[in-house]
């Protein structure tokens, strides 16, 4: 891992700007974009702005004001771009969900439930958790003490839907839910976070063994057989998730995160090759053995052959993206409701249809900014646990966006992961708010100037005698 001191101003203690003003300005910009987007949708679809608009705008603005004030108070050196990027994505997501609500009303479909207000409530809960985490966890290193507890919690959360009866855990063939009294959550989203914290703490501990003990075979530093244990365990865990919960997405996400964190911790490219090999083997076997995996791959290879069945969604999504073209149909101008479950899994195709390639690329660039800030945090922070944790969290976002967008555009088989912050879905939104809270916490530690200590004496002024060669 490149060093702690990549920021040339990092050592200039005292004059490091907190950049909270930048954050406030950009947050304001993000709120403005959200409100404008909502207004455009209303005007385009119904011709007038809905009366709830004022309340909605005030609520959204209040959420980010609270988040900003909390960061200002409890993480004053945090990265200024993390929160605005999230604000923009959440705002755009709410807009697209609202737009799809309107579309459903216009068609007069049987279900006229409004999902945007529900998502707003989830976002509020997310901000509440964000605030709670920043206030309670003052030093990210404290988390490493709970590593094994969190690992256990993560595995329990991951395994819970598998052991629950299908009536309580199965939606559309994937057993990844817990449904109790009308509420449904996806525990896997939270398990992901617990496991990333555990991976970071575990790898910080074991990186030496995993990095140093190796044999050289054909130019690659291969680890010893017994050190393969953890990566095999992660692999088996992913396979078990795939078998018992029929969830391609979480399986892929978990394994990918572990392999990449292993690579970051050890700097050994051989781990990537081992991971890739295990993945290829697992994928091949899964394709042979599991019908649902084979169906996904077949529809991916030729969606138009299955247009009346499994391929319908993907085909509609591709048509939507095609209709959008370069500049899109304009917010409210397209027919994104033609894609089944456009609000959650296929929200990216709705964005692509209404905002076009330029809009979709803008969204991807916002994700890129978010991930870049996460990785940068990982470079700058000066403790190994923080480095690994920040890198893992940032990679989790990047990996998820890649897999989802790949699925929606037909580049990869569909997996059923959610687009972070954008897609409709409470668990995903709340869990990702927690993820960002962790990143904000670590970035605060990374950017905070070193505690004021006696200014280093210049060598020439030092009382020792300078020995010049």
């Amino acid at each position, binding site marked *: 891992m490149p060093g702690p*001191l990549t920021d040339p101003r990092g050592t200039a203690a005292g004059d490091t700007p907190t950049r909270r003003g930048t954050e406030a300005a950009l947050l304001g910009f993000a709120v*403005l974009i959200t409100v404008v987007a909502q207004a455009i949708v209303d005007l385009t679809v119904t011709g007038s702005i809905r009366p709830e608009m004022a309340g909605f705008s005030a609520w959204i603005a209040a959420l980010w004001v609270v988040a900003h004030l909390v960061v200002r108070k409890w993480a004053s050196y945090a990265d200024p771009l993390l929160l605005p990027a999230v604000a923009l994505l959440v705002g755009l997501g709410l807009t697209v969900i609202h737009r799809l609500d309107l579309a459903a009303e216009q068609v007069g479909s049987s279900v006229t439930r409004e999902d945007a207000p529900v998502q707003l409530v989830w976002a509020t809960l997310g901000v509440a958790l964000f605030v709670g985490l920043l206030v309670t966890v003052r030093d990210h290193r404290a988390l490493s003490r709970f590593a094994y507890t969190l690992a256990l919690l993560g595995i329990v959360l991951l395994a819970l839907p598998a052991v629950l009866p299908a009536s309580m855990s199965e939606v559309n063939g994937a057993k990844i839910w817990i449904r109790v009294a009308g509420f449904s959550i996806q525990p896997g989203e939270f398990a992901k976070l617990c496991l990333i914290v555990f991976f970071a703490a575990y790898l910080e501990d074991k*990186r030496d063994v995993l990095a140093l003990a190796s044999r050289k075979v054909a130019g690659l530093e291969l680890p010893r057989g017994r050190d393969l244990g953890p990566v095999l365990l992660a692999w088996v865990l992913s396979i078990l998730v795939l078998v018992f919960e029929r969830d391609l997405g979480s399986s892929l996400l978990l394994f990918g995160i572990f392999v990449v964190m292993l690579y970051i911790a050890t700097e050994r490219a051989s781990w990537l090759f081992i991971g890739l090999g295990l993945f290829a083997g697992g994928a091949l076997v899964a394709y042979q053995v599991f019908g649902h995996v084979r169906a996904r791959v077949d529809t991916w290879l030729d969606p138009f052959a299955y247009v009346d069945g499994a391929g319908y969604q993907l085909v509609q999504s591709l048509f939507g993206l095609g209709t959008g073209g370069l500049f*899109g149909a*304009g917010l409210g101008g397209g027919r994104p409701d033609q894609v089944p479950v456009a609000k959650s899994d296929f929200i990216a195709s709705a964005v692509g249809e209404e905002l*076009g390639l330029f*809009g979709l690329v803008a969204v991807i660039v916002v994700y890129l900014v978010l991930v870049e800030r996460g990785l940068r945090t990982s470079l700058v922070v*000066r403790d190994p646990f923080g480095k690994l944790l920040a890198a893992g969290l940032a990679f989790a976002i990047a990996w998820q966006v890649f897999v989802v967008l790949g699925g929606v555009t037909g580049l990869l088989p569909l997996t059923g992961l959610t687009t972070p912050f954008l897609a409709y879905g409470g668990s995903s939104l709340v869990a990702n708010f927690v993820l960002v809270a962790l990143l904000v916490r670590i970035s605060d530690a990374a950017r905070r100037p070193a505690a004021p*200590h006696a200014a280093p004496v210049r*060598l020439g002024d030092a009382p020792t005698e300078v020995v010049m060669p």
Partner: protein
Amino acid sequence: MSELVLQIFRFGFLLLLWLFIFAAFRVVRADLFGGRTGRVAAVPPRAAAPKKRGQRGPRTLVVTAGPLSGTKITLGDQPILIGRADDSTLVLTDDFASSRHARLTNRGGQWYVEDLGSTNGTYLDQQRVQGPLLVDPGQPIRIGQTALELRS
């Protein structure tokens, strides 16, 4: 809604989105290059570049052994503090390291290592560091289990 207004909405909103990204990139840029953006990055002052004799000073400090092995620190003008204290540039987690163990200082493009009164000492090659010593690139500096060297 008239067609013209719709087109204004359509392109205006995309413009707004990209303006946000532009603003975000300005922040990224300011972080990378320092100072205020919108101006051509200042040319480094000539006076501070006397090392014109083809030989450039070391650029990075690399940890070659120990728990932090592989860590690279880009060298600037600032001195580098090494020790167990949280505010050190390189934070060691080693029972044999003191909280403020050693310091590397840049003087005219050359780096000197000083021991800051550590308990177990700092070694340059095999020699225990007493006063400031000139460090050549590739010469190992040992602190407890950690070994460091300068690379150009």
